[in-house]
Each structure stands twice: as C-alpha cells, then as structure tokens.
C-alpha cells in the first residue's frame, strides 16, 4: 500500500491517545490506518464549534423524528433518543470479506443445528454436544420436536455480536437468534450522517446499506407461496424497540400488528380489518416465544395470539424467527458453535470465538469461582447487559454476592476472560477520546439457502470512559459503520 502523506494531526486529534488498545482508526499514535487517513485528516481539521454544531443538528433530528428507545423502570420521560457519536467506525474491504464469510458459515451451521435438535438429534447422539445441555436449556421447546418449517430455516434474522481484541482480531461474542434488534439504528445512523456530514462521504467509497428492508421483505415473502400477506407483530408502543418495529414495517410496506389485531380460526391466522378478516401468511414477529400464544406459553400474556402456535405447527402461517431458536444462542451452548460448524459443514470456523468457561462443568465452575475477579461472568439467557458481572471492575462484595447466585444455579452461568475491546474515537465536547466498540451485523437467511448481509452493522459504543458495556440500557450509544468498497 502506498504510504499516505504524513499530515500532522494538530487539530481535534492533537491530544488523541490510543492508550494501548487496538484502535479502529489509528495504527499508532501518529498514524491512522491507511484506509482511514482521509477521514482522520478531514475530522482533524474541524473546529470544536463546527463539530458541536453538527452534534446539535443530529440531536435535533433524532428528537424531532422520535428516533427513540424506551428505558424500563423509569416512569418519567420513558422515550429517550439513542445517543449517536458522529465519528464513523470504518471497516476495510478485506476485513469485511473475512467477517462476511465467517458469519454466513456460522448462521448456516446454527440453522442446521436447530433443525437437527428438533428432529433426528444426530449431533447429540454422536456425543458432540451433551444431550442434557440442550434438552434442559430453558429455551429448548420440546413441543416443537418434529415440527417442520419452510426451507428448514429457523433463524431468518440473526444479529451476531463481534468484538475485536487487542490485536484487532474479530471474534464472535454472541449470536442473537431470537428477536435481534438495532437494525433500524444502523439504517438511521447512515441517514443522519449523510445529513449532518455530507462532506465526509465525498472522499470515501462507503458501501450502501439501504437494501436491508428490501432483502428482509424478500426473505419473508419466500416463506409462503404466491403473493403472501406479511405482517410485523409488535408487543406495542410501550416496547423498547417500538420505533424499530414501526420503522421496519413502514420501510417494507407491511402492516404493523399487535396481538389483539389477530385471531385464529380453524388454524388459520386472520387480522381484523375495516373490510372484515384478512388472512395472514407470514409473521415477522418481534414478540418473544414466551408471549406468542397464551394457550401454549405464558397464559398471562396479553401480547400474543391464542392458537397461533398451533397454526404455525400446522404450517398455515410462517413465523420469522421460528419458535425455539433460543437454544442456539444460549450462552452455555455458544462454546459448541465451532463444533457445529465442523460437524455439519465439515469446515473449520472462519471466525474466532472468545474462550468460555461453563458453569455446568464442575472443573470449569471451580475455575470461575476461583478467578471471578479476572472474568466476565454472564447469565446464560439474559441479554441487554443485564445479569452480568465485570469481575476486574467489581468490588469484593459485588463479586461475592454474584457468586452466591452462580453457586445456586451453575448451569445458568458462563464466564469469559475480559477482552480488551478495540476502541474508536468519539467526540467529547471539544476533542476526541477512544471508547470501546463492538459490531452487530444482521444476517438474513432465506428458505432457498441464500444468505444476505448488508455490508456493515450496528456499531455500539460504551460512551462511559473505560466502560466495556455497550448496551443502550447501560449507557451505550452507536456510530455509523462504514464498510469501504474494495
């Protein structure tokens, strides 16, 4: 690669420190990565006033458009804008090619695994994954054994969280195979950046991502023959991701329905319209398994549709994602994903994972209990940054308290070494500082075996100094993610 001209960074980046972390924009203190140098130079030349002005414009846009998420447990002002940092995160073409290949391989294996555990159980019978671990997983749905789904696809939309470690290696931290959220922020962040920073795009060749709603709709339509009626099922306006639900329904031009808009008659799902009942063929559901059908799962659920699960089993309606996919993103099952890839595909995993200790193995449990202060301990089935302990940053009492829960229910916990996540510059009032980031691409699988990923994903950033927790419920924000053209 031709060395970029050495521009002295004496503007907003003048005092920027990488502090020993892998940095998404900088190779070392003086020098940006080759593919980032134009961007870094352009940002460096801005004045703090200019940057602040663009931040205000961005904030105003988000508030006016009602691009918000809902914070639970907070009675007042429950809708909050999701903070966006305006320094883009850049991914070079060769890195993306590697990531894309790895994600496709991974999701293919996860779908084969789900089909297998709900049918022949070959991988369990062959002893490659302990049977106990699977059939006792809280999100394993025994009632779905031998139910067939279109094209044997269970996970149509997968959100896989990637992190980069101290040398920049991409590693899978977890998969989200149930109802992954955040894609609307990926799309909106791009629109926002083009609105407030059009000049930055001029010298870059950034891959567009706006095909996502189209690709998603295509996959959903493939789940039923003819010209199917596709709807998006939301828990309603009080759900934290309601903005996303309405955004996606609008982008795809499909109806956004709540449980009370649907009913089931003779195993057929209908929606209540101004012209009477209309049959529904495909449901992109953003309601968890537990709340989907009060006749089968939680009887107290008012979000669901009585009879929906039976209709799904009968094959008169398709659901995306399928029911019972939570067994594939269980954190205790995660250590076995590389094994699934080898078993079903006969390939070596393209993407690395993070070393993981599982509570259900006595030896590993012992290690977790002895080394808690060095580890990140997580509840196997929680998400959103809840139910976890950051050992190195926790007090002695916090560690001791958490371990009481671990001992009480070891099956429910896993532990990983603290990975020093890569950082990316963020704007803090008048200068840039590094903050830890991850990346969640959205992988779409169709019944024809095709897998599509729009180049990029949602880059989440831990805005609090030193924090490793990127979840929006825990003080996280996001950034636009630029995958560059080759």
């Amino acid at each position, binding site marked *: 690669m031709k060395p970029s001209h050495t521009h002295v960074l004496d503007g907003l980046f003048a005092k920027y420190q990488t502090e020993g972390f892998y940095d998404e924009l900088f190779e070392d203190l003086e020098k940006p990565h080759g593919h980032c140098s134009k961007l870094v130079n352009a940002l460096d030349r801005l004045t703090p006033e200019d940057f602040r002005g663009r931040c205000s414009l961005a904030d105003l846009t988000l508030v006016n458009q009602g691009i918000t998420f809902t914070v639970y447990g907070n009675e007042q002002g429950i809708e909050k804008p999701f903070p966006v940092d305006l320094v883009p995160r850049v991914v070079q073409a060769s890195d993306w090619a590697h990531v894309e290949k790895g994600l496709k391989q991974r999701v293919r294996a996860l779908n084969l695994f789900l089909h297998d555990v709900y049918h022949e159980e070959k991988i369990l019978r062959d002893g490659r994954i302990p049977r106990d671990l699977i059939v006792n997983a809280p999100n394993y749905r025994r009632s779905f054994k031998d139910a067939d789904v279109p094209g044997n696809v269970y996970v149509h939309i997968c959100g896989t969280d990637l992190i980069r470690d101290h040398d920049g290696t991409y590693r899978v931290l977890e998969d989200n195979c149930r109802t992954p959220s955040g894609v609307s922020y990926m799309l909106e962040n791009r629109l926002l950046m083009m609105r407030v920073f059009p000049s930055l795009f001029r010298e870059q060749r950034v891959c567009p991502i706006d095909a996502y709603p189209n690709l998603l709709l295509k996959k959903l339509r493939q789940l039923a023959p003819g010209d199917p009626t596709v709807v998006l099922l939301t828990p309603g306006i009080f759900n934290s991701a309601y903005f996303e639900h309405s955004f996606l329904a609008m982008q795809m031009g499909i109806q956004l329905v709540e449980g009370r808009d649907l009913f089931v008659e003779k195993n057929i799902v209908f929606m*209540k319209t101004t012209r009477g009942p209309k049959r529904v063929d495909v449901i992109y559901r953003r309601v968890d398994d537990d709340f989907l059908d009060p006749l089968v799962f939680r009887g107290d659920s008012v979000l669901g549709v009585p009879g929906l699960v039976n209709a799904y089993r009968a094959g008169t309606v398709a659901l995306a994602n399928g029911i019972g996919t939570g067994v594939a993103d269980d954190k205790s099952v995660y250590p076995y994903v590389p094994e699934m890839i080898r078993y079903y595909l006969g390939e070596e995993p393209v993407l690395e994972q993070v070393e993981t200790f599982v509570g259900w193995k006595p030896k590993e449990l012992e290690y977790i209990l002895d080394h808690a202060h060095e580890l990140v301990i997580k509840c196997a089935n929680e998400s959103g940054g809840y139910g976890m302990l950051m050992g190195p940053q926790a007090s002695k009492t916090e560690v001791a308290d958490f371990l009481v829960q671990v001992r009480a229910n070891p099956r429910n916990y896993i532990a990983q070494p603290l990975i020093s996540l890569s950082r990316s510059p963020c704007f803090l009032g008048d200068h840039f500082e590094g903050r830890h980031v991850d990346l969640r691409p959205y992988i779409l699988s169709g019944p024809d075996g095709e897998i599509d990923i729009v180049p990029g994903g949602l880059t989440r950033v831990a805005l609090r100094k030193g924090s490793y927790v990127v979840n929006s419920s825990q003080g996280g924000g996001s950034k636009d993610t630029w995958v560059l053209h080759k």
Partner: protein
Amino acid sequence: MGSPQVAMLSRHADSAYWIGRYVERSEATARMIDVHYHFGLESGEVAKALRWSSILAISGLEKEFAELYDKEDEASILQFFAFDERNPSSIKSCIRSARENARSIRDQISSEMFECANRTYLAYGPWNLERVLAESPFEFFQFVKDRTLLFQGIMNRTLMMGPTRDFVDCGRFLERADQTARILDVKYFDLLPHYSGEGVISDSEPISVGGPIDIHGWTAVLKSVGAYEAFCKSYSEGVTPKRVAEFLILSRQFPASVRHGALRVQSCLDRISNRSDSDKLKSAQIETEKLLLMLNSKNANDIIREGLHEYLEEIGERFELVGEAVYRDFLEY
C-alpha cells in the same frame, strides 16, 4: 404498480380517525379562544356578549370545568382549554393524543406526518398560561393554528390516497362541522337580544342590522371558525344573523360549513366502503344520507322560522349517529 390498499386494520383506522379529530379539535379550540380573547379586548360590551362561559357551553364541558375550577374567568378558561391535561379536549391533551395516535400508526402515515405531530408536541411543552399572557396570546394561537395546518398540509402532500387518509379526513370533517354547528348555536343565543331586542327574526331582514356591536359580534362568530373573509366574498350585502347562519350551515363551498363537512364525510365513507362495488350501504353511509337530507330540505328562512336552536340540536344528534355508525361499521374489533 402495486395494487391499491383497500382494507386496513381496524385499530389503525381507529387511530387515523382520532388523529383527524384531535388535530381538528386543537385547531378549532385555538381559533375560538383566540377570537374571544381578542374581541374582548376592544369593547366591554362585546366582552359581555362573548362571555367566557359560552366557550364552555360550546364544548359541552361545563360540568367538568366546574369540578376543577372556582371561577369562570379568563385565566381559568384559558388554562382549562389550552393547558389542563385533565381536560381531554384541551389543546394540550389533543396535541398529545394526536401524537400518541400518530406514534401508534407511524408505519401507516408518512414519516413527515409523524415528525410534524412529534415536533408540535415537543414545541408545545414550554408553553404555559403565564407565558401566553406575558408574551403574546396572538403568537401562541398562531403557533397552534400553524402547526395543525402544517400537519394537514403535509398529509395532503405526502399521504397516499386511501383508507388511512379517508379515516383521518372522516374524523377531521365530522369534528369540524360539529364544532361549527355548536358555535353557531351558542353564539346565536348570546347575540340575539343585541340584535332584535325581542328575540324574533323576521323573514325579510333589513339591509343594515343592529349597531356596530352586533356587527362586531357576528364578525367574531365568523372569525372563530375562520369564515369571515370567505363570508365577505359570498355576501356583499353585509353581516346579518340569517346570512351567517345560512353560510355556516348550508354553504357548499366553505370548508368549515356543516354541509361541506357532511359532504366530505360522505365521500370518505363512500371510498372506504367502496360504494361502486356494492349495493349494500353501510349504516354510516345511511346516517350521513339522513344528515344531508336534513340539510338539503330547508333554506335559511325555514330554519330560522322553525327554530335555529332546535334545528342545530338535531344536526348535532345526527352527527353523533354518524360517528356511532362509523364505529360499528369499521372500528370496533
């Protein structure tokens, strides 16, 4: 070309209908209070005729108001109608409810419509009674009117012709025509003694009626439904009670007249229920026909001779029947 959307979720239709009603109600309330406030400034005499309590009579909220306030003075009335969220018809409540309904169907309406409803809601927050009285009531009422009209303009420009729009319009015109009828009813009662002294209006009105105060009062009635200029264009002979009643009830052209509203509701309902495809009329269409029949079978002289109040009361009941039938036919689920 995609096929045109004909059916929509009943819940969505319900929200669309209420967006129409709430947006219209906030605009109508702003207009009405604006006129009261500004006409009261000029003349104590007029202020008496345009009593604040008549706004309560128009809204039908006397009881609710009495439970919450001690006095029927300017500050209490303004607070109750502009800012009190305990009053579901206050401008503040209407703006919040319109925005909530827009949020619950934001995938059905255009992004620009939601953004407009949302921005209006956010911008309304900092207003309160003290600020209105200290700064400029004019600016405040103008702000409400501008925002509600902007919303309607954005809808006209960005929302597909189809059931969502028809339900918004249906709610909007029902609300508007109903409001016009109520204002006329209450104001006619208020202004009558000033005009004739004996409470009876003859068929052949004199060219010039009453004194300047009467004219001032009737002008206020017209302005409170945004009808003054349109009226002047239609009647060069000047303002008389009969002409005002005729214009506000029977005009086909004026966008806030009772008849215009009923005709617009009828065309919305015809499109929603696809009249050309079916011989079976929905009950909402039948009720609208009955309302129009009432409007088509009398002229202003008949109406006034037989009793304007009774006539407007029946109109109000007919509007209610239309509203109930809309619910029965399309929205109940």
